């Protein structure tokens, strides 16, 4: 087999870069969606409706902190399960 030409090496590098870019973009979209869902879930669980005031009370602040912590644990558990059940 002959060694690859500079053009072939270049083309391969471009293909790899394109794949890495797609991967990075996909991961970014995943993170944004994760954040959005986290906000939505914790807002549903913690924010008083209808709101008596715009700022967050001390209770709501604690609720949000705990909600985020639990949400993150759920992310980890589900991730582990999905990772090991292939």
């Amino acid at each position: 087999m002959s060694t690859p030409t500079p053009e072939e090496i270049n083309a391969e590098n471009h293909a790899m870069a394109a794949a890495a870019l797609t991967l990075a973009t996909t991961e970014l979209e995943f993170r944004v969606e994760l954040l959005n869902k986290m906000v939505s879930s914790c807002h549903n669980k913690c924010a008083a409706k209808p709101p008596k005031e715009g700022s967050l009370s001390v209770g709501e602040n604690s609720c949000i902190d705990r909600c985020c912590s639990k949400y993150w644990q759920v992310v980890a558990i589900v991730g582990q399960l999905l990772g090991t059940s292939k």
Partner: protein
Amino acid sequence: HCFTIQKDLNLFVLYVIRMNFPLDSVAGLPDEAKAALAATLEHMQVRDSLKMYNNLVEMCFKDCVEDMRSKNLSAKEEPCVARCAEKFMNVTGRVGMRFQEFYTTMEKEAAAAAEAAAAAAEKN
């Protein structure tokens, strides 16, 4: 109520930009790819800001606006909407803060684990 939607949307978007990319897949990219990624990111920011705007409007309308007897928001409905939006932006800010913390911690742990695995592999 001295908050502006624009300022808080920017804050929200900031949490998205500041997220660290996994160094492996981004650091080795050629410059055009990095520029393309930056452009994608900017496009996503705009798109998500607008989506959030729509969702927030819908949510506060659903929670605050009840009677259709008048063309204008009543004296009760208008401050309710303002409070609703402000509260949501505050929740978004706080959750975004915790999100950053978690991700940073998680990536540090992953990096440490990767280093430990590499060191163990070298020994053998």
